């Protein structure tokens, strides 16, 4: 008799283990977040597309935002969105003018995202300064002098249309801090 057999469960213990639930229904919004992340990677609507220019890495970042919540993870530990999110998606790109915000601004932005969370907020991340551009014409050369240096973060929201997305974006505290917000619709191709 080997070591494992010596510790085999009794009938009563086995019944106890068998009584533990093997399935749990996940919160409904998780499905939407996963689909959004995969869509941002071009997983749906035909062949996986390569997006042009700087939007490629921006959308890749949006997909990454659906991953683990390291750093700024808005609303983690708080009540989950009660209803499944559905509708057109927009990305709010937050560009900084001058000095980037610190911890207080992060908390302020998190509070804002929490306020708009129900039915509209999908995800968001603060980005570290810097980054590298790669272009075919530059070969393997990398440049850190780019617009990406002022891109401080983004939010992904859902709204009925661009006007609705702009309405939400206008309430973002980023504007009060002198920043600019670029609102772009996700093309669900």
């Amino acid at each position, binding site marked *: 008799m080997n070591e494992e057999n010596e*510790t085999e469960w009794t009938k009563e213990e086995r019944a106890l283990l068998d009584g533990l639930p093997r399935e749990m229904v*996940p919160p409904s919004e*998780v499905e939407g977040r996963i689909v959004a992340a995969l869509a941002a990677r071009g997983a749906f609507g035909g062949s996986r597309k390569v997006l042009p220019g700087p939007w490629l890495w921006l959308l890749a970042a949006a997909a990454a935002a659906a*991953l683990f919540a390291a750093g700024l993870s808005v609303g983690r530990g708080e009540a989950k969105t009660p209803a499944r999110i559905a509708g057109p998606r927009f990305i709010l790109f937050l560009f900084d003018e001058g000095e980037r915000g610190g911890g207080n601004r992060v908390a302020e932005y998190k509070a804002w995202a929490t306020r708009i969370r129900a039915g509209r907020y999908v995800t968001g991340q603060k980005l570290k300064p810097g980054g590298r551009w790669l272009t075919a014409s530059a070969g393997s050369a990398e440049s850190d002098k780019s617009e990406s240096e002022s891109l401080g973060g983004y939010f992904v929201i859902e709204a009925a249309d661009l006007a609705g997305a702009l309405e939400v974006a206008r309430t973002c505290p980023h504007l009060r801090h002198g920043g600019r917000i670029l609102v772009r619709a996700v093309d669900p191709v």
Partner: protein
Amino acid sequence: MSGAAAGADASRSEDDRALTVRFLGGDEAAFRELYRRHAPAIYAFATRLSGSATDGEDLLQEAWVRGGGRLAGFRWESGLRTWLCGIAVNCWREMRRRGPRDAGAADPRMEATSRVVSDSDRIDLDRAIRFLPEGFREVLILHDLYGHTHAEIGRLLGMREGSSRSRLSRARSALRARLGAPGKRSDGMEEP
């Protein structure tokens, strides 16, 4: 994989393949069908593994996002659900490396109804499993709750079959000790 869970996984694998082909062609509805078919089991697995429904939710999401990106290279040597659970295990390990988790936090979503045992017994058991040492809990959950073989566990966790057997034996002993001695951790430390 063995047991009822394994059987269900295997019986669905052909359908899963067809849905996967459609998903890889860009069919969102096919992906959603795959998700709805397997997410409840993976979510329960991830929640039990991490001891937290919040972490379980993150693991579920990460497993599908990563898995969705790798499905084209999946060789179907196991069921889709098994494969995704393996990704969740790896994600959990990464999550652990980022910082300590609160394994002792009770989670009401783990307290679904059971037809076989009393609520108090089941909650005690779930809590005892949460306090098993890292590495032992994974093996016990995979083997005794989800019916994976030691060979599968070895592949999933990157260990020898013999190590899986040994850890299972020690995990069972620790679980028995904990259930029999309330207030004591399986490693002999006092519960906080």
